Each structure stands twice: as structure tokens, then as C-alpha cells.
């Protein structure tokens, strides 16, 4: 008897399905995965070290780059931490503008995920359909902020300019629900899609909590934890966190679809509030002279990929003494070790895709 020979497969860092530069070292027996070892760091930019060398306002434009698909969230998170440190309460209108843009950004991010996930499964068309809708949102952002991805629109205590082109947002939220229905028609009940996703990549509740998985991935496992519920920005806005208990890839897909619909509702409410409130009054903090009082400041936000948090330790100078980001994708990558074991190679791609991993966020 000769022993069964296994072999190692180096999936990535250059691979079409790793959504960036993730490297997975897989040990395979045929197509069955025996073990998986993620290797990250190909996109490390030293965001935390960089913060210690820069003034807060200098650092502000770079935080968008932590997650290039949802730049608004990290911008907001950073501004929020600074505002908390300075004891500034932002006015209502600024709050609603931020909610509006955050949710638009969340939709754009989820749309891209839907396209990329279906691309992983081998269906090319949904990718283009999702990009078509995402394009509307990006066009709007470009009109408003001058940038398609790195908006740098939130500033300490407010936003850079007053919101404008509201009719574009109305247009987007008019069109989107119909388009989402179209996606559901070609994707959700597609038998091949079901065989690829139903019951695949199951994340049990305890496993998810143990691996510190947050966001949609956690809620698709049946845990009702949405940081937005405890978020002061969303105080006067009604929404229900999407909780599904399928625990599999299909639930994660469905949860994102439902979350887009929920975001549309939030946008509608925020839009009305923005229209009711008059001119923009801001409590701007002078960013040039900004010195944070000594102490630690911590804040959290529900980003599209999960819970993101920012920790700043200030020694009273104009630069942070220590700045720490919690990026949700990093924990999802760590989970791959557990859930890819025993899966087949083509399922592995689908499972890894369903977690919505984005590499700049992992590598910081």
C-alpha cells in the first residue's frame, strides 16, 4: 500500500477569484481541500504606521483607501472618532447627508459583490448588470464629490459641501427596486445557482462568533447584530436588520439582496429629512490646528463587510500616538481556514466569494 499523495496548490496572489491579492495555500487530495492557509499582506500599506507620522487632516484622505469599495464608511468612522474626541455633536442635516451617502455606498458595494460572486460561479452576465446599476451610484458620487471611489467628502464636524442633485438619488431609488427584482429572477431560483450555494459553506452561530465574523455574514447565520441599531446617525430612521438563518452561501447572497432593499428604504427616509431641513449649518473643527485631547477614543460603524472600528490613543499632540483599525474582512479571511476544510475546489471559490472579502481592507 502506498500512502495517498496530496499536493499543495498555491491559489493566488494573482488569481481571478481572489478579489485582489489574497493567497491561499491549499493542500489538495484530488479536488478535495484538506487544509487551507491564507497568506495576506500583499497590499499592506502601513495605514496604522502612516497615521503616526501624519496630522489628522493629512491622514483623512487616505482612510478612504482602506476599503476602496466603501470609502465613505472609513471616512465617516475616522471623522466620528475625531468628533467624539472633540466633543462635537454634528447637526441633524449633516447626519442625514451622511446616512444618505453611506447607504448609497453600501448599495454600490453590495452590487459589486453580487456581480463578482456570480462571476466566481461562472455566470458572466450578472456582473455587467450589477455594474450598470452601480454606475448610476458612482456617477452620482462623481457629480457630488468629484470622485468615483475615494470620495474624501466627510470632514471633521460636517461634510465638504452641501448635498446637491437630489433628483439623481430619487432617480436611483426609483430604478433600483425593479432591477433588484430582475436579478432575483435570473439568479435566486436558478437551479444551478442553488446547487452551488445551498448548504455550501455553512457557518454555525458559535463558529461565526468565535471567529469574530460580523456584518451580513453573521446575520445570515441567524445572529441579530447590526451596529446600525445602536448608531446615533440612524436614530430617527426606521429599518429592520436582515437576519436569515440559512447559514449557507445562499443566505449570504439573499441577505445582501434584502439589505439593498432595506438601504433603499433608509435612503428614502433620509432623503425626506434632508429636504425638510434647511440650509447646511456645520460645526466645523479647524483641521489645521486640530489637537486631540489626551485619552483614548473608540468608535464603531457597520460597514458593508461587517463591523469596522477605529481606536485612537492621543497624547495631546496633532498626531495620533496610536491608531488601530478593525477591518471585518480580515476576520473573514481567517475563517477560510475553518470552512474550506473538506470542501471541493470549485466550492471553495464560491464559499470564499460569498464572504465578501476585500483585500485592501484585510491588509490595511
Amino acid at each position, binding site marked *: 500500500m502506498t500512502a495517498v499523495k496530496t499536493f499543495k496548490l498555491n491559489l493566488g496572489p494573482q488569481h481571478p477569484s481572489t478579489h485582489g491579492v489574497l493567497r491561499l495555500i491549499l493542500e489538495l487530495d484530488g479536488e478535495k481541500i484538506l487544509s487551507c492557509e491564507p497568506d495576506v499582506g500583499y497590499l499592506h500599506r502601513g495605514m496604522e504606521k502612516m497615521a503616526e507620522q501624519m496630522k489628522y487632516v493629512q491622514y483623512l484622505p487616505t482612510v478612504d483607501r482602506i476599503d476602496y469599495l466603501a470609502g465613505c464608511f472609513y471616512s465617516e468612522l475616522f471623522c466620528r472618532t475625531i468628533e467624539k474626541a472633540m466633543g462635537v455633536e454634528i447637526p441633524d442635516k449633516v447626519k442625514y447627508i451622511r446616512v444618505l451617502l453611506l447607504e448609497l455606498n453600501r448599495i454600490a458595494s453590495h452590487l459589486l459583490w453580487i456581480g463578482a460572486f456570480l462571476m466566481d460561479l461562472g455566470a*458572466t452576465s450578472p456582473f455587467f448588470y450589477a455594474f450598470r446599476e452601480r454606475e448610476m451610484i458612482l456617477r452620482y458620487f462623481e457629480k457630488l464629490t468629484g470622485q468615483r471611489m475615494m470620495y474624501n467628502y466627510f470632514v471633521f464636524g460636517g461634510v465638504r459641501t452641501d448635498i446637491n442633485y437630489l433628483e439623481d438619488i430619487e432617480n436611483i431609488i426609483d430604478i433600483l427596486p425593479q432591477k433588484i427584482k430582475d436579478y432575483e429572477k435570473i439568479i435566486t431560483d436558478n437551479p444551478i445557482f442553488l446547487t452551488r450555494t445551498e448548504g455550501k459553506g455553512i457557518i454555525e452561530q458559535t463558529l461565526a462568533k468565535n471567529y469574530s465574523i460580523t456584518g451580513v455574514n453573521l446575520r445570515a447565520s441567524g445572529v441579530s447584530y447590526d451596529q446600525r441599531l445602536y448608531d446615533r446617525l440612524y436614530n430617527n430612521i426606521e429599518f429592520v436588520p436582515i437576519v436569515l438563518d440559512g447559514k449557507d452561501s445562499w443566505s449570504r447572497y439573499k441577505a445582501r439582496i434584502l439589505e439593498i432593499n432595506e438601504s433603499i428604504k433608509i435612503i428614502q427616509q433620509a432623503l425626506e429629512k434632508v429636504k425638510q431641513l434647511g440650509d447646511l449649518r456645520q460645526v466645523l473643527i479647524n483641521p489645521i490646528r486640530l489637537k486631540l485631547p489626551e485619552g483614548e477614543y473608540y468608535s464603531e460603524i457597520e460597514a458593508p463587510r461587517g463591523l469596522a472600528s477605529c481606536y485612537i490613543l492621543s497624547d495631546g499632540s496633532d498626531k495620533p500616538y496610536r491608531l488601530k483599525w478593525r477591518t471585518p474582512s480580515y476576520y473573514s479571511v481567517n475563517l477560510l481556514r475553518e470552512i474550506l476544510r473538506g470542501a471541493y475546489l470549485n466550492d471553495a471559490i464560491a464559499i470564499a466569494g460569498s464572504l465578501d472579502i476585500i483585500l485592501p481592507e484585510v491588509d490595511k
Partner: protein
Amino acid sequence: MNYLYFLYMDFLAKYNVPKILGNITFYIIPFCIIAAVLLVVVLILVLAERKLLGYFTQRKGPNRVGYWGVLQTLADAFKLLIKENITPGKADRFLYNLAPILVFVPVVTVLGIIPYSGEFTFVNTSTNIILYVVLAAFPVLSIFLAGWSSNNKYSLLGAARSISQVLSYELPITFVVLSIVVLASSMNLSGITLAQYSSKGLAGWFIFPCIAGFCIMFISILAELNRCPFDLPEAESELICGYNTEYSGMRFALFYLSEYSMLFANSLFLSIIFLGGYLSPFGGYLSHIIFGDSQLASFLVYFEQTFWLFLKSGIIIFVIIWIRATLPRLASYDLIKFSWVVLLPASIINLLWVIVYKYLTGGAA
């Protein structure tokens, strides 16, 4: 064909070429013609696929090179020709170079046995349906050679997937082909075509008694061609094109060419055995309707027959592209399970049904 044969022999006799040489070369010439025509067909197919995929996904497709992008594939082919051929350092050089050549041989041979019109078959053997089925499965050998010799794990996985895929889908194909042989009482593709003739046009086509067989055959052919949703051996998002990952330049072009040629050949085959081949979907031919019984009409009929055959296979290719734009990819174990659990029993039941049908409709006892 006979007429051409005598013309050719006379031509050679003029220059005192031995007759045996003429006999051999006469059968080589058509394959050279096929290879040349094939290039054009593939260029059109690739363009059609890109254009159609573009329209399916609300894009324009290639539209810069030439009017309506017609020269785009030509430009791409030229680019592939002038690209460097790279051989991986640890590849098995002989097999690595052999594979792309070997993949092209069965493709050209297969197209030689197709009856394009009533009088136009390059090589007409009495049992050429068997020859077709064997040759059509042949490219998988070179795919395996390519995957094996590339010394790349992705290629190897692609090759292994390809082998298991063809092994499991070859059986349903054979059973469906058998049922066609039963229906037509012939193993010759021209004979099968003529067996589908009926004065009411498409009423005689084998798709009607054998609709299940058509579906099984269509699905199996998708699998044999490595087309979506069975494109596992070259799954872009998993294996990075599988067996042809390491190939570049002209060698890659040969794989590409054979892939589309097989698509063309298989769609021709499908329309011959199920959709009446070169027969007109109406009772008579358009040429006869327009030009009456003139000499011109009987000459034009041959072209019209080819036109019908190409139209039918064009529709099949369109559906195949349509499927590619719509469906995600199956998982490898589901694919094999689907073949053994669904397709194989279905094809056997189909064969039994066809035999009963043939008996009931008073066919050969």
C-alpha cells in the same frame, strides 16, 4: 464528387502522375480546403459570440476595428500569431508541442465526413456516424496531454476534470446515436438525412419522435465542448483556463481554433441527426419554388441545402451562446452525478422508446 474525382484524375494523367498517387492525394485536398475554410468560419463564430454576449449583457461588443467590429477577431488572431511562444521550463517539451497539433487533427477530419448538401460530402463512408462519435471525443486526449505536459497544477486539474467529464458524457451520446441509427436504419450521415425526408417538410425530422434524445444530446454536447455551464476544465474563475493556462501565441490559438471548430462541427452534427440536415423545413426547396424546374434551380438547390444546414446549426450555436450568457457553472461532482443519475438512464429509456416507436410505425421488423 465522382465528377470531381474523374476531373482530378484526368488532370493528373496529363502530367503522367501515377494513378495511386492521385488516389491518395485526392482525399487530402479536401481536408486542406476544410482547414482553410475553417479559419474563416471560426473568425465569424468568435465575432458572433463576442457580439452576442455583448448584446446579452447590454454592451456593444467589439466595435472599433473595421466596420461593426468585423476585423476585431482577425486582429486578435494576428496578435496571437506574432506573440512569443513560451514553453514552461519543466514542461515535457515533446508532448507540450504535440498537444496543440493533435487537437486540430480530429476537428478537420470530422468536418470531412459531414454531408453539406445532397452531393457534397468529402469522405462518404457507410458507417460514418460511428466515425464521427469517435473522432468528436478525440480532442480530450490532446487536452489531457496539454494539461499533463504543462507541469502546472491548474492545468493538471483541468485535464483530470476534462477526462472525467468526457468519460461520463460519452455514454449518453452513444445511446442517443444508437436510437438515431434505429430510427433511420442507416449508419451513414447522408442516409440519416434522407431518412428524415417527408413531403410535409419538418414533420419527418427525428427531433419529434426523439425529443428526449435531442435534449440529452444537446446537454452532452455542451459537456463535450466544455461550454458553459459545463466549462469546468477551463473554468476561468477556478482553474484560470485549466489545460491551456501555460499556452501562448500560436499554440494557444490552435486550442482556441479547435474549440470553436468543434462547436461548429457538433452543431452541424446535431442538426443532421435531429433537424433534417440539409433538408428544407418546407416540403420543397425555395429554388424550385422560385425558378421552377429549370437547370438553374437544380444547380441552386445544392447551395440552398448547405444554407439550410448552416442556418440550423447557426440557431443551435446561438442557443449555446445564450446559455453561456445566462447560467452559472456546475460543480464538478454535480456534473458527473447528473450524467450517471439522470442522463444515462434517460438515454437508455429513450432508446427503448425509439425501438417501440419504430416497431409501431411499421419500420423494419
